[in-house]
């Protein structure tokens, strides 16, 4: 009896990766464009005067800044693999991406390149101050794009204080033509960081689940996109349900749940090779994958005889998984503190879902949520100062608390908002919202004030967002 079940489990394990390979993963995926490529930082044009240093500390003050983002100029208009129209047209697109980043995130009061005069190439380092002063622009973003002989692009980005007529910061990057948008995101990050004092976050990617079809036959596919929704790709074809993806911190892998062999199991998909492997060689169902901040470990939840506990395994493969929780209740999920020393997770040992913290070796487990309602799917902020969670109080809301479980603030009030994931800088939270009856899902984001909430544009329904760190 035991031999038979063991044998069938082994067959499943052997068959699973091969089946996943051929049946479910899209063959046309271009791994090169998905994997992070180096963006080389370069010195940019201009004199060698150091940037003017100032400090902006008041949140509300910088949110109201008017910023003019003019079309990026080029030294010589020539076509590149990035676009057919040439570097002049690409310069306009670059500025549009910077503008969209700032505008759609409710940051500053940006004015885009389509409403502004186009500066010439020499004016990038020597702005026409009189032009900009008359446009109520307090800040000015200039930039250029140049096609290099080796086929790559050099993009420069400059931030000026119009009233002071002085440069605040500048940076430049050499990128492959296929990654031109990353240069624009880096420019938006430069502007945002310099003016807000916060860490950057635009140059990052999101893994999520794309949903189509009716509620009783929903097709769920693993998909990825840039932080602004561009460069969208499906990774699985939808033949089997995919759930809960998580990017590895270096973006080389995605851990996610798939029913490809008929059972819920976590696979680790290697973006470079297109291959995927089971997170652990076990016949038991595994779900809720999470990476440690250094990428060395994967947390997963595994049900044995119906009892779910949290385990930790080396991400490199091999090694014996370590069981971190042992109780008869459901212990599930888990999110590391930024320094990797602690894990916040959820358990129903009190009779309902509540949030708990333990050391990363499983010791010193203690409940932190003692407020009304239930605490589910906790996610530790990359800054360490907050934990986002799904607050179940009849309806499902996104809320944050400090790591002591205090200072709870509710950020959203949909019918069912769940599954928070943090922007790399810990200032914005994405989550997904389910509509009553239809079950339609969409990804939303909200800032920590709760004031700026918006829906992300995705090609189809979207759930289970997982925001990766700033690209390496």
């Amino acid at each position, binding site marked *: 009896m035991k031999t038979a079940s063991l044998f069938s489990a082994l067959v499943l394990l052997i068959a699973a990766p091969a089946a996943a390979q051929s049946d479910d993963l899209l063959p046309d995926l271009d791994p090169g464009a998905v994997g992070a490529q180096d963006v080389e930082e370069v010195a940019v044009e201009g004199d060698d005067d150091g940037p003017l240093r100032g400090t902006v500390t008041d949140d509300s003050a910088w949110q109201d800044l008017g910023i003019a983002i003019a079309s990026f100029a080029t030294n010589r208009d020539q076509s590149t693999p990035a676009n057919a129209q040439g570097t002049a047209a690409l310069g306009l697109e670059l500025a549009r991406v910077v503008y969209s980043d700032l505008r759609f995130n409710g940051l500053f009061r940006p004015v885009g390149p389509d409403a502004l005069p186009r500066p010439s190439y020499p004016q990038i380092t020597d702005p026409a101050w009189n032009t900009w002063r008359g446009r109520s622009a307090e800040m000015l973003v200039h930039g250029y794009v140049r096609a290099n002989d080796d086929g790559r692009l050099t993009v420069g980005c400059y931030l000026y204080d119009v009233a002071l007529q002085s440069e605040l910061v500048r940076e430049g990057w050499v990128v492959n033509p296929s990654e031109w948008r990353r240069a624009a995101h880096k420019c938006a990050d430069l502007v945002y960081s310099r003016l807000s004092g916060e860490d950057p976050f635009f140059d990052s990617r999101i893994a999520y689940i794309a949903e189509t079809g009716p*509620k009783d036959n929903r097709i769920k596919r693993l998909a990825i996109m840039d932080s602004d929704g561009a460069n969208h790709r499906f990774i699985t074809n939808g033949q089997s349900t995919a759930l809960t993806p998580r990017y590895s911190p270096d973006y080389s892998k995605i851990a996610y749940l798939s029913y490809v062999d008929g*059972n*819920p199991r976590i696979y680790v998909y290697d973006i470079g090779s297109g291959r995927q492997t089971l997170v652990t060689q076990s016949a038991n169902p595994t779900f809720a994958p999470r990476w440690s901040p250094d990428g060395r470990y994967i947390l997963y*939840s595994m*049900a044995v005889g*119906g009892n*779910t506990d949290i385990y930790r395994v080396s991400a490199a493969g091999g090694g014996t998984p370590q069981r971190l929780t042992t109780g008869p209740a*459901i212990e599930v999920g888990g999110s590391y503190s930024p320094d990797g020393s602690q894990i916040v997770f959820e358990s*129903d040992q009190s009779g309902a879902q509540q949030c708990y913290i333990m050391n990363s070796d499983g010791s010193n487990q203690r409940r932190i949520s003692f407020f009304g309602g239930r605490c589910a799917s906790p996610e530790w902020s990359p800054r360490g100062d907050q934990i986002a969670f799904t607050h179940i109080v009849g309806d499902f809301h996104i809320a944050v608390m400090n790591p002591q479980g205090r200072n709870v603030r509710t950020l959203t009030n949909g019918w*069912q908002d769940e599954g928070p994931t943090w922007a790399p800088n810990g200032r914005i939270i994405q989550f997904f919202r389910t509509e009553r009856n239809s079950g339609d899902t969409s990804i939303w984001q909200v800032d920590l004030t709760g004031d700026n909430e918006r829906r992300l544009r995705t090609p189809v329904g979207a759930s289970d967002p997982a925001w990766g760190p700033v690209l390496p």
Partner: protein
Amino acid sequence: MNRLIIAVTLSSALALGACKKEPPTVTPDAPQDTVRSTPTPTPTPMATAPQPGSQSHFAGAMAGADTIYFDTDRYNVDSEDQAALRRQAQYLLQYTDARATVEGHADERGTRDYNLALGERRANAAKNYLVSLGVPESRLRTVSYGEERPAAMASNEQAWARNRRAVTVMIER
């Protein structure tokens, strides 16, 4: 009208089989000829009846007892569930070649990871009860679908009650 008469005159096993979501593995002969030849139903030939151990045969024999239901966030087997599981166990003990999967489900009013764990708990609660009644564990497997495969589509208490369930289905050979 004609179809209605046919359905009524068919054997009960066939009629039940026709109601199920899963199509029978063995398609019954077209019933028109039978009805036209004689107004009284002839016994259905054995070859066209659902095979014991098939999903359609099991579902027909269970008449609804293939599914048990749970309260919110609960996974205990109550007396009503026990009656249904006893019926399932009788079937599995009668047809000793039959193997089954117990599918655990949760309603949509839960978070995704927790619902997967909850579905696993429910499937195992049903499976453990079947094993306690003498069904060999080797003939039973479990799978949790969490909230991914609802049976009722609405977002209200009645629909959620129908979706918090464990369903036993035959593994077809």
